[in-house]
């Protein structure tokens, strides 16, 4: 039997790693993270039942964005701008070529 993949999508893995790395670098304590994440899950789960896949990591992402904005590690506007820059990069890069920001 093939083992299930640890992560369903690459961005789940990337987000997970980013969070673990920041925790280990001392940017926040894990119990604090778990409290915040638990609160986001609870909020997201009010209207519908979360399936533990994409919606779980969406709640994770929102928690990390908010946390880093609060600590000043990343500004909300800068995040939006960078997201837009990556989107533009994907849209202008021919299929199959590496996507870069420049």
């Amino acid at each position, binding site marked *: 039997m093939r083992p*299930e*993949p*640890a*992560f*369903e*999508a*690459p*961005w789940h*893995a*990337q*987000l*997970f*790693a*980013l969070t*673990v*790395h*920041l925790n*280990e670098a001392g*940017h926040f304590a*894990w*119990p604090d*993270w*778990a*409290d915040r*994440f*638990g609160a986001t*899950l609870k909020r997201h*789960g009010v209207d519908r*039942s*979360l*399936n*533990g*896949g*994409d919606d*779980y*990591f969406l709640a994770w*992402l929102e928690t*990390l*964005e908010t946390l*880093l904005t609060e600590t000043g*590690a*990343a500004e909300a506007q*800068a*995040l*939006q701008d*960078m*997201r837009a820059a*990556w*989107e533009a990069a*994907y*849209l*202008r*890069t*021919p*299929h199959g*070529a*590496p*996507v*870069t*920001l420049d």
Partner: protein
Amino acid sequence: MGGIYARMRAGASGPLGDWTIVRHAAHDPAMPHDHHDHPHSLLPSDPALRVKALETILTQKGLVDPAALDEIIDTYENRIGPKNGAHVVARAWSDAAFRAALLADADPVLAEMGYYGRQGEHMVVVENTGDVHNMVVCTLCSCYPWPLLGIPPGWYKSDAYRARAVREPRKVLSEFGVTLPQDTSVRVWDSTAEVRYLVLPQRPAGTDGMDEAALMDLVTRDSMIGCGLAVAP
């Protein structure tokens, strides 16, 4: 989740490396870029772009080392998983002194086996017997013993499991195909960021004389969460 994800890494693509999502979903009507050929690269989903944005900004600020991220992903995708937990269980089945030490104070025992670190700092091992069946949940989020079991499966993180494991554990167990004798009581352990649990499943009958390696194959991930039983040989 429809579709299969594959990760592609391109070598020379700037300091971050590059990854993009390939989603083979020819029959998925929700796929926004479901054309036969793509004039541009597949646009990652909104959250994927947001994660990239976070990573880029934190890397530019020197707060994140992309190589360290790759290392963490590789660890959990390829090196750490339920085999570690199965090793512990198989040894506990084979060695009474080890089992006693593990149940009394798991941390030093696990540390000696090399199964410690991230999210396994304080472990408690709970033993299933004919009288008691143990089951683990995290009602807050998804606390889980990473060094022993790797990354939790989707269902462990779902609202349904997190809520129902506590409310109606026997029903949940039956959905996993586990039916316990009526006089076996069910004990549900709620993990926290500080304490993680591993269930020591009952050793199946007919396994006398099997060595540790053979026993390991009988120990499933679910049996160590308490949502399954060890497999009979």
